[in-house]
């Protein structure tokens, strides 16, 4: 019965949504509509309804109420409590309810925190946000209702895919969604601001907070997914250019561009139209991310089998929203008052513009790489996949100038600067970087064509960002994020160049030689856990002075019957030792993979630094 409570509260939320849309749509025409307290309380009721329905679903998962179809398909009584709760959003229906939950809560927060802004702008934002909420409510209620009943009631559920039973992945979707859904507020408010003719500095300083929040959450969300892939998928990499990863990277790139544009808009009152276009694009990318992942269209390693009719719904909804926004953009474009002061070539404005251009290029590469295979399959039924070489080849050559401009850009002044005075420190840092990278490349015999300039520039950026901490009037949040980014590029580069990998099939007692190390498969033992059996292998890795013991694990789940590998990773600040093993067949052989991954931990730390910079920026009143 409690199951139906969730269902009915969603219907109430739907009714509220229709009412609010019809009420607020009046303000599209008239400019004098004021937001009555009435509507505000309706929004609160709506959020509460969605929260109730979400809690109902969690309750159904925790109590293993198998009369609920979603619970039956994705849960099991023997599952630990933590994963019963996280199982709520570990499936299609639940994850959409989470989307909706975040949508309504964000709208609620928006209405509360925007009290001092113009009524028309608030009402219009409410209107657009309600349209999105309405679409998602329809989608949930009619194509993927998490509260469908099952009769007769089964005794036992089919279980959650064990690969998802992991702490990092349990919190990955909520964090990522906070980022995705945050872009919906940016989208609605950009449209509202065009119609009410208020794309200006004060709009920028208001929406900047939302851009920062979404950006921080999106970065952390991507990081969590990446960490999960690193230790759970057993490949020892952190980014595979898999379509599902790409769809989270695309809004991030767009949002990063928007972040820089919004700062400039706030400071210099330029780039009005461009900020609007980016706001719309970012949201469209977030929506299509959900669409591509959930529709099962992507031929991806992560794809979960799914129902195509759902994809069609999201696709139509997405098209309507994009069409609507383009229409609004063209109709109300004249309200945008561009500030047409004379631009100078050497100025911070140009640097931001360059950042945006590069971001757009990176975005198009990722977009084409992700969409092209789908496109080709629809057109002539050819099935292809696009691997890392495509991305590396296109991104790396452009990364080199990008790093250069990123190093010098932030130090250029607004409006107009001179190139005449050559900065002595920058030149000397550049020379030092050349020397350092030359010796490095020589020592490790790295022979990739572009690696030398790439090294030079990433080391250059690294030094410059460190130096910049000691300047006058330091914008600390920006410095931290930029330093984090330079650290990220540098660690990815070192990680890519210096990683070593070894794999072999071994029996217990076998020994293998790899570099100057001996890898010994010592023993294997079996332990019974709550909902799986665990095989723990013991490996010893020895070189002249050190001996390291690694104990990777194989988990054999019975509900559903699946094996997962848990890699054992021993991390130090310089390098990760990564060992994972797998059973192929009952003939005594285990497939063993040993990897040395230098600077792995710095990749995670640098992303945390990047997001931390955003967080600090949020705290400050004026950047």
């Amino acid at each position: 019965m409690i199951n139906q409570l969730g269902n009915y509260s969603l219907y109430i939320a739907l009714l509220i949504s229709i009412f609010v849309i019809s009420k607020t749509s009046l303000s599209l025409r008239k400019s004098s509509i004021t937001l009555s307290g009435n509507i505000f309380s309706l929004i609160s009721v709506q959020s509460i309804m969605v929260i109730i329905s979400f809690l109902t679903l969690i309750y159904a998962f925790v109590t293993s109420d198998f009369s609920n179809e979603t619970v039956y398909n994705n849960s099991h009584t023997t599952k630990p409590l933590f994963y019963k709760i996280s199982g709520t959003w570990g499936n299609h229906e639940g994850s959409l309810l989470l989307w909706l939950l975040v949508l309504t809560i964000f709208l609620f927060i928006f209405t509360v925190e925007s009290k001092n802004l113009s009524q028309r702008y608030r009402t219009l934002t409410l209107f657009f946000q309600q349209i999105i909420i309405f679409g998602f409510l329809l989608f949930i209620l009619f194509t993927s209702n998490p509260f469908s009943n099952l009769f007769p009631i089964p005794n036992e559920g089919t279980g959650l895919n064990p690969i998802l039973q992991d702490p990092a992945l349990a919190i990955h979707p909520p964090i990522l969604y906070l980022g995705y859904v945050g872009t919906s507020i940016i989208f609605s408010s950009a449209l509202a601001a065009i119609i009410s003719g208020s794309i200006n500095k004060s709009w920028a300083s208001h929406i900047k907070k939302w851009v920062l929040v979404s950006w921080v959450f999106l970065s952390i969300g991507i990081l969590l997914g990446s960490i999960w892939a690193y230790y759970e998928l057993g490949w020892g990499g952190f980014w595979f250019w898999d379509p599902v990863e790409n769809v989270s990277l695309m809004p991030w790139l767009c949002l990063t561009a928007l972040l820089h544009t919004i700062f400039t808009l706030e400071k210099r009152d330029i780039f009005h139209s461009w900020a609007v276009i980016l706001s719309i694009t970012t949201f469209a990318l977030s929506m299509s991310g959900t669409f591509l992942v959930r529709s099962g269209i992507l031929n991806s390693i992560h794809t979960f089998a799914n129902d195509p009719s759902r994809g069609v719904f999201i696709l139509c909804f997405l098209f309507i929203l994009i069409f609507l926004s383009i229409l609004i953009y063209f109709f109300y474009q004249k309200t945008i008052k561009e500030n047409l002061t004379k631009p100078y070539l050497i100025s911070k404005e140009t640097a931001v513009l360059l950042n945006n251009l590069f971001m757009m290029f990176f975005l198009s590469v990722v977009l084409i790489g992700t969409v092209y295979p789908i496109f080709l399959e629809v057109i002539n039924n050819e099935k292809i996949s696009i691997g890392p070489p495509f991305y590396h080849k296109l991104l790396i050559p452009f990364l080199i100038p990008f790093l250069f401009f990123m190093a010098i850009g932030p130090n250029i002044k607004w409006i107009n600067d001179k190139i005449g005075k050559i900065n002595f420190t920058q030149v000397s840092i550049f020379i030092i970087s050349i020397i350092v990278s030359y010796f490095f490349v020589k020592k490790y015999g790295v022979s990739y064509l572009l690696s030398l300039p790439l090294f030079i520039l990433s080391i250059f950026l690294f030094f410059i960002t460190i130096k910049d901490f000691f300047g006058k009037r330091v914008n600390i949040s920006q410095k931290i994020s930029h330093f984090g980014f330079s650290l990220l590029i540098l660690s990815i580069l070192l990680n890519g160049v210096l990683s070593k990998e070894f794999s072999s099939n071994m029996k217990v007692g076998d020994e293998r030689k790899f570099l100057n190390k001996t890898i010994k498969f010592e023993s294997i033992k079996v332990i019974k856990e709550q909902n799986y059996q665990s095989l723990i292998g013991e490996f010893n890795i020895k070189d002249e002075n050190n001996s390291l013991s690694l104990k990777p694990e194989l988990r054999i789940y019975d509900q559903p019957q699946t094996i997962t590998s848990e890699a054992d990773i021993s991390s130090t600040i310089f390098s990760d030792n990564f060992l994972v093993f797998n059973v192929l067949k009952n003939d005594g052989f285990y497939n063993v993979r040993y990897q040395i991954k230098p600077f792995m931990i710095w990749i995670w730390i640098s992303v945390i630094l990047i997001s931390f910079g955003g967080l600090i920026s949020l705290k400050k009143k004026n950047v």
Partner: protein
Amino acid sequence: MYGKKVKLRILFISLLLISVVLSIYLILKSLEENVVYFLSPTEIKSLVQIENKKIRVGGMVKDNSIVINSENVNFVITDFKNEINVSYSGSVPNLFKEGKGVVAEGFLKDQSFLIAEKILAKHDENYMPPEVAESLKDK
């Protein structure tokens, strides 16, 4: 004639256009070079000539076909019409099992032998490569 401002604007727009065209050209060109085609064992049988290009083969791992020694994993991919032998050295994913779906990426040696560099198996235990689902339907 046109004023200075207009000339500048034309220059700017044409530069922008050129860079857009150039980057699209670059992207498409490297697409051509880096695309990996997905084939079924049947499609491989019907190939006229074998190119030295990376491909992906999808199908089911044939029952009782996995043979392991300390260096390699050898197995047979089938789409229930045709088969192909695969030899692979490296680590295999968890869901790589006899009777389950698999995708192997590598180079063809001849029409019945693939030297794989990468093995992909899907996360979902019920997953079946679409090609296999299709060829099962045809049967």
